[in-house]
């Protein structure tokens, strides 16, 4: 759907078949898009909504039925929006969904103004409900994990350059700070993925680091279970399938690495198997 730079350079065109046509190009953000997120939950007549965050700090909500901007939100004081994520919805919000046709969704947006805003769009509102000040100026995006009773866990880069902070939301209570051991020196966290194994309730966190390694943290025990170096350049993005215990990471060296997690919670880099099936994989650069 979205492909900002789809034109192939002439030299490439000779070698490769032309890339497939985009189905539609959504126009109108007026500045570069830095974050995208599909809202499958809030559908308008069978079409999901799409959130896009632009460099100018605006969040656009697109209807994929009319392929037009439904709402534009401004909450990051003109600074680039880097991450968009729908939040686990509170039960009363779901009720609103039934009564209200359009986007009664709450979502969070992270911006380069070091703020993480929580939005509530129920009943036509478009206001920031709450916000969280971040202390890390890096590009690392946050990650969330839904918990019980409307609570959810949020992982964001922490104050120290190599730290990851875990917060309990929506109360914003800091649960812990994950700091690698002094001698590890993995550099800054570049990407985060909070997840939970189906067998246990303990939240786990995958972190891609600046030195090209991916680490699995046990959040409750605040320790690294396993760490594997799969890239030579910083890890830019990663995704993990908790069902199959396999993950993919991409790095600045333009390579993907596939790795898996064994029963002992140890990460292992595996050769990409052409037959291997990834049920879920999303990378955003």
């Amino acid at each position: 759907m979205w492909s900002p730079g789809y034109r192939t350079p002439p030299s490439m065109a000779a070698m490769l078949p032309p890339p497939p046509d985009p189905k539609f190009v959504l126009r109108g953000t007026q500045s570069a898009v830095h974050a995208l997120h599909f809202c499958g939950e809030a559908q308008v007549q069978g079409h999901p909504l799409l959130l896009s965050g632009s460099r100018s700090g605006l969040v656009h909500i697109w209807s994929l039925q009319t392929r037009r901007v439904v709402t534009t939100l401004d909450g990051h004081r003109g600074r680039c929006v880097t991450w968009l994520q729908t939040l686990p919805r509170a039960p009363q919000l779901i009720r609103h969904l039934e009564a209200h046709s359009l986007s009664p969704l709450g979502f969070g947006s992270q911006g380069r103004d070091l703020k993480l805003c929580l939005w509530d769009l129920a009943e036509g509102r478009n206001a920031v409900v709450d916000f969280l000040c971040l202390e890390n100026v890096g590009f690392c995006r946050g990650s969330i994990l839904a918990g019980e009773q409307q609570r959810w866990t949020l992982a964001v880069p922490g104050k120290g350059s190599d730290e990851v902070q875990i917060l309990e939301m929506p109360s914003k209570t800091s649960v812990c700070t994950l700091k690698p051991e002094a001698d590890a020196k993995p550099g800054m966290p570049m990407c985060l993925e909070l997840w939970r194994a189906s067998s246990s309730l303990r939240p786990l966190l995958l972190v891609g680091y600046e030195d090209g390694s991916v680490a699995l943290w046990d959040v409750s025990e605040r320790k690294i279970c396993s760490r594997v170096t799969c890239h030579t350049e910083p890890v830019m993005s990663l995704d993990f399938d908790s069902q199959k215990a396999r993950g993919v990471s991409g790095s600045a060296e333009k390579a993907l690495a596939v790795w898996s997690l064994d029963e002992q919670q140890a990460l292992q880099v595996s050769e990409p198997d052409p037959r291997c099936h990834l049920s879920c994989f999303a990378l955003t650069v």
Partner: protein
Amino acid sequence: MAVFDTPEEAFGVLRPVCVQLTKTQTVENVERLQAQLQTVSDSALQGLQQYILFPLRFALKTPGPKRERLIQSVVECLTFVLSSTCVKEQELLQELFSELSACLYSPNSQKLAAVSEELKLAVIQGLSTLMHSAYGDIILTFYEPSILPRLGFAVSLLLGLAEQEKSKQIKIAALKCLQVLLLQCDCEDHPRCLDELEQKQLGDLFACFLPGISTALTRVITGDFKQGHSIVVSSLNVFYKTVSFVMADEQLGRTSEVQAKPAVEQRVAELMVHREADWVKNTGDKLTILIKKIIECVSVHPHWRVRLELIALVETLLLKCSQSLLESAGPLLKALVSLVNDECPEVQAQCSKVLKHFADQKVVVSNRAFADILSENLHSLATSLPRLMASQDDQGRLSTLALLLGYLKLLGPKVNFVLNSVAHLQRLSKALIQVLELDVADIKIVEERRWNSDHLSASPKTSASRPRGQIQRRYFRFFSDERVFLLLRQVCQLLGFYGNLYLLVDHFLELYRESVVYRKQAAMILNELVVGAAGLEVEHLHEQHIRTNPEELREIVTSIFEEYTSQENWYLVTCVETEEMGEEPTMKQSGLQAITSSTQTCQVTAFASFSKPSPTVCSMNSNIWQICIQLEGIGHFAHALGENFRLLLMTALYPVLEKAGDQILLISEAATGSMMDICHACGYDSLQDLINQNSDYLVNGIALNLRHLSLHPHTPKVLEVMLRNSDASLLPLVADVVQDVLATLDQFYDKRAASFVSVLHALLAALAQWFPETDSLGQLQEQGVQEEGSRLSQGPATLENNTTTADDIEQFLLNYLKEKDVADGNVSDSDNEEEEQSAPPGVDEDDTGPSVEPPLPVQIQIATDVMERCIHLLSDKNLKIRLKVLDVLDLCVVVLQSHKNQLLPLAHRAWPPLVHRLTNDDPLAVLRAFQVLRTLGGECGDFLRSRFCKDVLPKLAGSLVAQAPVSARAGPVYSHTLAFKLQRAVLQGLGPLCERLDLGEGDLNKVADACLIYLSAKQPVKLQEAARSVFLHLMKVDPDSIWFLLNELYCPEQPTLPHPNLHPVQLRGAPGQQNPYKANVLRLLQELP
């Protein structure tokens, strides 16, 4: 006159008269009696009824020959008595009845007596009055089986009168009397309401007269039109009243199988009819024959009252005898339906009322048999429809179609019952398709072009006032009347309204795909089906009918739309010279040949021109119509869906715009119409609004299709249409796609330049129009540029500059430009740019170095990019492209005039190819190039001066000089040649250009020398005129030298010396009358200050 109220008094008065009458029966006595009767009150008369009647009856009964006059007056008197009294005894009634009827019978000849018309009339009146005077139940006891012979006698008498008499009055009276006799008269409470049993008895009784009555009346009804409408109306009235009474379903339903033996003598019993099933069947069959005859005759009766009565007949019979007269239901319904569109409004209204009544009562819908009959009728009509349409005249066609329409209206939702049968649907659809066949042999369709491509925006405006629903004139093979087409559309709309839309759309889409022969018609039908389904233009009888739900309708429309706009149905060959504009002349030649040769053998069947190497005119026409119909369809869809159509705009708008840019006039018109429809349906104010609001959809389509230009060669047209129909607010929306277009042009400049150049032209024309450069600003800036340029040449501007402080001017300019730009809407962008440009020369130029150059306004950026391409395309090998490029270049210069920093380098690069165009190209190109040169000279004079003088002027002057003797010798035809136009254009252009460029003396002389020859009276007048204009401009630059030059040619008077010390000047111009330059020089010298 005294009135006698009591019987006693009356008796006293009447007795002598009655006695007198009984004794001598003369007319006078009867009249005397009647005169006396006038004085007696009704109540008194009632008491003496029998007494008074006696002498009268006696007079009638007296045997022997009687004088007619006497009988007449007796009957009249009798009638008078009866009209004032009641008959209370059955016997009296019967006797009077017999006596009266006997008056008209001659026992000798066994038939109607040959008596005077007055007598006949009197007797008829008498009978009628008698029946009315029967009191209460007496009338019912009168109608017992034993009366049959006498009643029959009277009935046949009256029928005979109605049929054979000459007098209209008698005929009508007889018919009315018959009606009374059969207890069907129109008067109030006569007869009183009958209960079921009584009705049945009467029905049984009258049944035996039915054959006689019906046949006789049919003869009357189907008789000569000239007999007068009232007779036919009355006959029809009696006919349907009688038939509907005897054949009433209500009565027949209760008829027992076994005939109850009436207690009458054998002779009478034989006359009695038992209305059992067989009888009903037989009678029904026979009546059907008669009814058919009647309908056939009456439905085309010239008098509207007759047709109105026919409606009453149909209504009564269908409502009362739907079972017994089932066989006739077909013809009856047909008659009714065909009258729906009667020319007489009363008939129409009544007919619609009856139809509505039927629909409300669910006569057809609830009656399976009727629906069967209707669908059979429909089927047979559909079968004969093509034949009828081909053979009938327009009136006949109209009535045939009105019939079809009526059937559909009457069937209403039951129409599905017909459509579900494959045979019926096939028949109907084929019939419609055949009838709607277009005549595609007209050459004009292909030939008409949208020539005014530069002013497309004018065409939507004119058509903006076009009322909705009006469509392009079509030419059909089988009919020419617009109303016929209107009816056909209504038929389709009704089908769409009542029919199963999925079924119909599937069926017609199949036909659409099946053959090119069907395609246009199927599309037309589909369009109307959708409109009908939306229930917008349908006059519906069946109110409870549920419409198609909008969601479903949208799905259906989407599927039709996809079919329409698919590659093979949307991109059809519509003209010979498709893209090969390079070989235009030759292609056109062959195209014309194709046109002339193919019209001879033109078959109406179109070919799949898609695969044909050389399409015929017919197939191209057919294609054009197909596209038009499909475009119109899209408009219809929008109309049908209303606001819901907005969701389809994503896909629909692009193809429509593509066709709006088509060069075939019809297609472009149809597309514009379709856009207007979309505008109205979706609630946009104007085409401009529509395009601006949906530019994201359009731009997306353009951007995607540009990637596969070979598959979508028409893509640039969409942008062209967008630009032509919008305003400056569109520019930011299309800016990125313009870059795409330019990039694609770079990729395909050798193959598809033509279509791109026209987009560029549209683009620049739009820019020039959207961002006009006001004169004051242009001059101011020019001044600024002159300041820069004239620092060396010490021009007047610099002097001026010195008198005011530089800061003042700077501030003034800055403020002015700021305001100007705010007004233009390019606030932040252009601000700094202007500032930099208009900064006075020599002030800290190094500080505001080129490194901090602010972004240019979008339109300037675009114009710069386009001009860049123009420079390359200027030397294209295709003349048509070169011409267009020169136009674009011209516009580029206009747009860029305020941005010299961009314009000058580009102009520098454009110079060599431009010079080449000027000096070494087709005359047409020279003309355009000259135009560019003039514009360029206007915008950057200094820059151009030296180059012009060096590269261009010598050649221009040379050609002028060389051509002068030719034009001087040439005849009047010369003014039509290209050479003449070239000379003239050059002369016209030179003057302002020279003035603008501020040429030096030497160059000025060159120009003047070249033009002088054209001042000769031998030259064509227009060239003289143009040459004069050159000198007028030159005078402004250097009046003295021009004075001298002119005087050298022709000297009107030697100048007087201002001072004797000066040398006398000898001017060479000869003052003679024969000097060819005299006239023009004199005129010019007058202008000289």
